[in-house]
């Protein structure tokens, strides 16, 4: 697209939203979009979609631009920031559900919910910089996925703006609901390729009263995973993570694989569960504020700057063997069969491709798959960020994309099969 065309589009969008709500990208946003628009409501999002479809302008929901900036090959023309759509729409603590606009961050939401002893129990890295739209769009989850699930488990209603600027909603504000097709699932993990999520309703849970974390170092990864699965077998764990030595070092352990498992409950329940950690050599426990602080560091572990980082998902019991053979650093949600793996520093393009190919075949051997979380911009042009789904499933996915986004403007080229 020429600069003249870009200027024309920018002017048109300024006309729609007012000049003060259209701006240049900043920081990592530059990798995600060329122009940023900040609509104030669903109607303005619809107007943007109309404009983009008419002019065949690509648009991407921006969130905090983190996910997109790490995987986009080229920026989308228009980034839609919902920074001005960050309100709680309805919150009835006794119903334990909340409806919020998609530009609100998970951190801000949970701060409000905590006043009532509740939370949206999803814990991606850095919730203060994760909007609800991004949380759903990229299906972010963290250590808590073991006990509380992932966005698909807790999202009970969704509103989005799609083709022709249609404002569409699925689900509702009640925790049990099978009326109509499950649009929540369709939007979860769709990476902005089907529309712009503007509002979401979630099921909430009480914040557990007591929380104890046990940390134990292991010389071998296999032993750390073995201990993790053994604990998972006998206790209702809140989470159980295994970290490779480079990440363990951030918790002041050197040269060890680290098991970080947590339990919750009343005083007697905590004491009983601690007893089960007893057999682990060198296990250290923390409670209360100190344990929460450690948990937050575990949740917020960054794998950047990495030459390449990926998330593997396998059958849970096969994860250990799979990550062990990779020669990479990792954080594993050990009982969920999900791990983030990365190589730090810099890597030549050819080495990156080789590394990814190796990781991929390891994931496939463990009946799983892989998606790239981050790669240096110079390496992106010929990387497949997602594994190819089986042919039959991919055909349906192409039909879905064509049905929901017939003009092909919603964040194209970032998703499975080039969608």
């Amino acid at each position, binding site marked *: 697209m020429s600069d003249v065309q870009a200027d024309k589009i920018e002017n048109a969008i300024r006309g729609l939203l007012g000049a003060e709500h259209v701006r240049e990208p900043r920081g990592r946003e530059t990798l995600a979009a060329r122009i940023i628009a900040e609509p104030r409501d669903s109607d303005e999002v619809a107007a943007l979609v109309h404009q983009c479809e008419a002019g065949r302008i690509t648009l991407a929901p921006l969130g905090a631009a983190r996910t997109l900036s790490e995987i986009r090959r080229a920026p989308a023309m228009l980034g839609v920031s919902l920074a001005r759509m960050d309100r709680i729409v309805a919150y009835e603590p006794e119903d334990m559900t909340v409806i919020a606009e998609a530009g609100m961050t998970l951190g801000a939401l949970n701060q409000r919910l905590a006043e009532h002893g509740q939370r949206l129990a999803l814990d991606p890295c850095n919730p203060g910089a994760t909007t609800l739209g991004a949380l759903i769009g990229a299906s972010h989850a963290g250590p808590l996925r073991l006990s509380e699930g992932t966005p*698909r488990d807790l999202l009970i209603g969704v509103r989005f703006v799609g083709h022709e600027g249609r404002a569409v909603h699925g689900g509702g504000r009640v925790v049990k609901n099978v*009326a109509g*097709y499950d649009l929540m699932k369709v939007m979860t993990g769709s990476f902005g390729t089907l529309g712009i999520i503007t509002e979401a309703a979630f099921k909430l849970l009480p914040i557990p009263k007591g929380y104890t974390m046990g940390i134990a170092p292991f010389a071998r990864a296999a032993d750390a995973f073995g201990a993790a699965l053994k604990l998972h077998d006998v206790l209702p764990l809140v989470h159980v993570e295994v970290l490779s030595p480079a990440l363990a070092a951030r918790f002041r352990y050197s040269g060890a694989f680290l098991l970080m498992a947590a339990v919750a409950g009343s005083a007697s329940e905590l004491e*009983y569960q601690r007893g089960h950690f007893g057999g682990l050599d060198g296990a250290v426990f923390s409670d209360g504020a100190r344990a929460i602080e450690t948990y937050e560091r575990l949740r917020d572990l960054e794998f950047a700057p990495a030459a390449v980082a990926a998330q593997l*998902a396998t059958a849970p019991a096969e994860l250990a063997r799979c990550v062990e053979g990779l020669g990479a650093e990792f954080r594993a949600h050990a009982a969920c*069969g999900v791990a983030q793996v990365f190589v730090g520093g810099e890597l030549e393009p050819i080495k990156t491709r080789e590394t990814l190919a190796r990781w991929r075949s390891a994931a496939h051997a463990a009946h799983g798959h892989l998606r790239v979380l981050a790669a240096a911009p110079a390496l992106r042009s010929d990387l497949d960020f997602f594994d190819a789904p089986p042919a*039959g*499933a991919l055909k349906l996915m192409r039909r879905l994309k064509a049905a929901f986004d017939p003009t092909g403007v919603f964040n194209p080229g970032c998703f*499975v099969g080039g969608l």
Partner: protein
Amino acid sequence: MESLAAALQLAAELPALAAELAEIVGADGVVARPSELAVYECDGWTIAKSAPDLLVLPRTTAHVSGVLAALERRGVAFVPRGAGTGLSGGCLPLNAPVMVCTSRMNHIVACDLANRRIEVESGVVNLNVTNAVKAAGYFYAPDPSSQVACTIGGNIAENSGGPHTLKYGVTTNHVLGVELVLAGGEVVELGGPADERLGYDLLGAVVGAEGTAGIVTRATLRLLREPQAHRTMLGIFADVERATAAVTAIIAAGIIPGAIEMMDALIIRAVEAAFKVGFPADAGAVLIVEIDGLEVGLSERAERIARIATEAGAVEVKLARDEAERALLWKARKRAFGAVGRLAPNYATQDGVVPRTRLPDILRVISMLSRHYKLAIGNVFHAGDGNIHPIVLYDERDPDQVRRAIEVGREILKACVEMGGSLTGEHGIGVEKQHEMPLLFAPEDLIVMSELRRVFDPNGHANPGKIIPQPGGCVEVAAPRRQAPL
């Protein structure tokens, strides 16, 4: 009269079609005799009836694929059926002459306890999944009341729930992968053993699609570890108001029980007559509350619940003393629908949802509607998640009672939606509630849902006439309506 012409043509073609299908599934897998087909004229929603012209009973995925390919060549639509325990007419044939019943596909394919997964054919009965892994200390969480009969395929179609979904979630939270045969016979795999989706979550769209995406032939299910221990309590209340207040208070205290179930006076009497559980005859409402987890914390939590319930006005809170007492309470709860059969010749089980805090309001509305329509209505439901099941008693021999039973059901659903709830928590839209869909969804929502449906079934041959209101029905899709809040 296009449809009449089509019907006539189909009638002429039926014998040839039956013969072709018999070649695929074997002669004993095709039923064409009207007297035998009458069994399949409805599911648990008995208000409308329509038998299929042919019934096919495949034994393998290849059978299903072959059957759907043969049907597509002739442009014939089909309706999938599991055990026929659905409660919204989901497997009622509507312009679908052929019914494909998965009941013979009832094998457990592979049990993988190390990964807490089990792969089953879709005709496996729900309870048999748990039975297969119970001895090893695992269970399959969704437990609809019909679990002794209903199939996993049916559960997937309806996204079924059950009492314990309050803590554990519904079917969609426990299905990791399916093998799906599309109309036309193509077999696709969606999801898999890993707990992350690759690409769009089409699996999530298939669960709850009420058989309109095709026929699920296999499923990989998540197994959970059986909790160390349970405590099952019975709370007895003078009226439903106090019982619902107790529900809200328990959950507000940060306790998420495995289940909280409520029965009102009418149901209590029916259940007591059937099962002799020991419910006081004069009780206005009872709550069954079950908590589970580590043995060490349970008694303390049970005492807290008893205290909260008493403060909310419980006359008495009893703890089930042993497994036999626990089993009796659950038998009473899960067979309550059947017990009601003693009170009237027919009953219609409704399914609606309100935000939990609106339970007292919806119960008041139901009691008012019961008086207005002069029909007895009992309530037995999943109080913890606001999922009500009013049971409307009527006599199908009296057309006016049938009319009133349908109307009162609609009024209850309208009230649920007005309170911010939903038309159905676990029974599905099926045929029964299509016309209420516009209460909840705007025209553009329904358009997008229709598009999603066509992704799986472009020609509309998989279970036509369900979920989305049909043009020419009582309510047009394009009817104007207010924007519903989420």
